[in-house]
């Protein structure tokens, strides 16, 4: 029996595996693809690892650092292996896998799910019109261009002003498509300012804020889109519809934790993050089952996803050592101006402060406040600039939680 099985061999999964293997635990990684690295193999742009390694690496380089350590530590890796089902309720957990080698049952004391996220598609944002060839998600395009050497089309419309959309826009520009237009409903790009400069402005790529694709036009292949302007609440302004010819539509409209495998085992989901409900060491509501990386919530940087994996690794250790839990969990709830918040509860006895990741709902100078249900401020920290596109990492002292049943986190603008 394994001490830990990690499902998913991307950066978070590898990080958790390496951390635990270093401490001498018997670890295995299950990965559905042919090799480790997760989504990073298609991210050939740089900017990975600035926090962890202090240098900007490309995706494959960043993954390479971890792959090397996985190999050095001799961690068991099951490649091309699909997790069919998991029995996770007991102390001994059983994972049924399917691979070209056959069906296998792997027994383990604990599990870390690190299966990442998926891209939202055209139907989730209710784009109307026809359903022809030529509509892709940004990740699919990244793969197509970087790994297969194929361009999706010649005249492309990119939907979404987030980081992935901007990076794909630059990439297609450099690969020589004839025209690009980026549209998004916000007043300005939602992604990181660094990407706006380096991907869009530096290349003069055209974009239209407060604009969305209302319909896709074309029978067998995309022939164009109907663009429409939207107001501050993203409601379409009638009469502003415009046909815009193009042969490809690329959607970069958000990432969603891929939680199907977690709900299968009964883990509870947070409707805000759309990831699992976790405690301060990223344990899900199923005992001994942990989650890490973008499966828990969408992180801005792979470095943060890796940090979540390290926290999960600590949780696994605590679980395996049978460390003491609090009598009752203390709930950490999103308060004013908070879009998402992880973790959701504190369950372990520990000394160290709690690391939380919070996405604010407002932009500007702000205080981040930890308060109790009566409104008494327990702790606060100042931020010179918060914005929804930037995930805030906060630390909450343990001692302030004593006697509390729940605390709230607010963002108060100045």
């Amino acid at each position, binding site marked *: 029996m394994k001490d830990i099985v990690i499902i998913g061999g991307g950066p978070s999964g590898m990080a958790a595996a390496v951390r635990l293997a270093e401490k001498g635990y018997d670890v295995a990684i299950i990965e559905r693809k042919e090799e480790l690295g997760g989504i990073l193999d298609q991210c050939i742009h740089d900017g990975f690892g600035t926090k962890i390694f202090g240098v900007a690496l490309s995706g494959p380089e960043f993954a390479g650092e971890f792959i090397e350590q996985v190999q050095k530590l001799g961690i068991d890796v099951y490649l091309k292996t699909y997790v*069919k089902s998991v029995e996770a309720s007991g102390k001994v957990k059983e994972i049924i896998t*399917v691979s070209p080698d056959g069906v296998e049952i792997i027994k383990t004391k604990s599990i870390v799910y690190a299966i990442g996220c998926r891209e939202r598609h055209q139907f989730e944002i209710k784009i*109307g019109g026809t359903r022809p060839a030529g509509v892709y998600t940004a990740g699919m395009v990244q793969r197509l261009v970087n790994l297969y050497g194929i*361009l999706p089309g010649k005249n492309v419309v990119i939907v979404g002003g987030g980081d992935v959309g901007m990076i794909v826009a630059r990439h297609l520009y450099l690969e020589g498509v004839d025209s690009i237009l980026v549209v998004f409903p916000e007043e300005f790009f939602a992604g990181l300012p660094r990407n706006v400069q380096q991907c869009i402005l530096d290349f003069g790529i055209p974009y239209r804020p407060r604009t969305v694709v209302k319909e896709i036009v074309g029978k067998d292949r995309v022939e164009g889109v109907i663009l429409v302007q939207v107001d501050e609440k993203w409601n379409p302004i009638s009469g502003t519809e415009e046909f815009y010819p193009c042969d490809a539509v690329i959607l970069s409209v958000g990432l969603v934790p*891929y939680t199907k495998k977690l709900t299968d085992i009964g883990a509870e989901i947070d409707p805000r993050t759309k990831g699992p409900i976790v405690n301060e060491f990223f344990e899900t509501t199923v005992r001994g089952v942990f989650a890490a990386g973008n499966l828990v919530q969408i992180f801005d940087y792979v470095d943060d996803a890796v940090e979540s994996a390290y926290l999960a690794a600590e949780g696994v250790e605590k679980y395996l050592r049978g460390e003491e839990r609090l009598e009752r969990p203390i709930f950490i709830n999103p308060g004013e101006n908070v879009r998402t918040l992880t973790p959701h509860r504190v369950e372990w006895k520990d000394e160290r402060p709690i690391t939380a990741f919070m996405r604010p709902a407002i932009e500007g100078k702000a205080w981040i406040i930890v308060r109790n249900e009566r409104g008494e401020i327990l702790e606060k920290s100042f931020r010179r600039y918060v914005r929804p596109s930037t995930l805030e990492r906060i630390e909450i002292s343990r001692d302030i939680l004593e006697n509390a049943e729940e605390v709230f986190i607010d963002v108060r603008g100045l």
Partner: protein
Amino acid sequence: MGLKFKIEKVLKKFPYNISFEIRDNIVFLYGEVESYQDWVEIGLAVGKIKGVEGVVNKIKWKGYPEEKIRKREERRRKLYEENKDKIIGEYDVVIIGGGVIGTIIARELSKYKLKIALLEKGSDVSLGASKANNGMIHPGVAPPKNTLKRKLNVKGNAMYDRLCEELGVRFKRVGSLWLITPRTLQKYRKYLPGPLYKFVSAYVFPYIVKLKGIRNGVKGIKVIRGKKIFEYEPKATRDAWAALYVPSTGILDPYELVVALAENAQANGVEIHLNTEVVGFIKKEDKVKGVVTTKGTFLTRYVVNAAGVYADEIAELAGAREYTIHPRKGVILLFDKALKDWVRHCVTELRFPAPKHSKGGGINPSIHGNILWGPTAVEIPDKDDTSVHREEIYEVLERYKNILPEFPTNKLIRYFAGVRAPTFTEAFIIRPAKWVRNFLHVAGIQSPGLASAPAIAEYAIEQLKKMGLKLEPNPNFNPRREPIPTINEMSLEELNAKIKEDPRWGNIICPCEMVSEMEIVEAIKRGAKTLDAIKRRTRAGMGTCQGSYCTLKIAEILSRELGVPLSEIVKENNGKLFDGTVRGEKL
């Protein structure tokens, strides 16, 4: 003449100058109207007249796409000239249309010693209404009595168990549950004061519906009330007063059925020609001698017109125009499998009288565990218009929200539209053409066309027999077709054994639906040549992520198995999956 007078009387109701002629009880309408809607209304009004066997509506509406139609005809003429002398072969029967009707007739005819060709203009079978309906096998309560529709529906429904068993198609009789709520008889509320309204709704109306079902020949209908309703359907709206339970309603995957029918027909000798569009006919006197297509000419003794929305145009090309199809679009929403426990039966809320243009529809489970909402019913001028507008999505969500008030509609993963092929008489037209002796119409097959299909095939063959087709049993006919093994449904032992046979059974390509490489390879071996054809045969790409993970992998397998470059891989028909520059492939 009685008919002439009746038509004049009906046309007087419309503020237009409409002229008409009658030929063998077929009415031809001419004139000009303001709107497409009027065009539909006039056609329907004339179609309702007793004694009218078909309406050919040649009226033009404002915005009539004259230029488009002229171009289409020109193109057909050109292709006709190019292909009429290219003889492909001689056949006993040529079937036009690869939907459920065409393929089921082909399969039924393959029981006899006949040389049969089925012609389909698309890149796969089942591309029209057959792929875009909710897969419901209606029980037969709805069609009016004394109609062919009623007879074939009830009979066809009963034939499904055996048909699906033979073809290895998943089929389940889940039953219907029709809710009667305070909204059911809303229109009559003012005539039924106080408690009378509830009494009539809950205690009288259900029995009227039940009686209609019994008279139509539908068995097992039950009226239920109170808590019992929620034993049947735990999440149904709490304000339901009563419900009708109809056990014979079934569900299946319509394209799974059509693919199975086509495969079985093919195994029994039917030639299936895809990407083969009919552009005209070679005629001698009042008989068709050859069917001219974009691939060449099929000489034939009999023609079956099962061309769905295009049946009227095909009939016209053959000189057998007896009806006009007025396309009616239906939008369906599809929800994630995660919600599979939300509904057990095909559920709807009865409304009497039915609101205009929203006939039928409701919420039902799919055979694979998704939930479907819809369809709508909208008259549209363009037969190929399967677009779904955002307003239509909201309309469906609004219309059925009363049935399951708590349903998590944010788990919507896809929407699509199909175009029904009604004629103005709104009847199934299954009869020999009046003016072309060897041409059989199987037209106007709209809901409950899928449910009726097995009976339609038998009925159509009776007609062909009457037309002189000799039916000698085919001693080699094999009714059975083996489905592609589905690893998702195998036990661990079975799956392990399969993987030992070939490791590709263990290589998962589509994680959402757990589809292996070998299932995809098997679909390609059986004739799938496009991404969507694979999707329909294996479900790869039909899950939560809608193919954003597996599309490229499937394209790669298609490219390898078909021996064509990745850049040539097609989604459906002529739609290339990728349309940009390819590095290294064609330098």
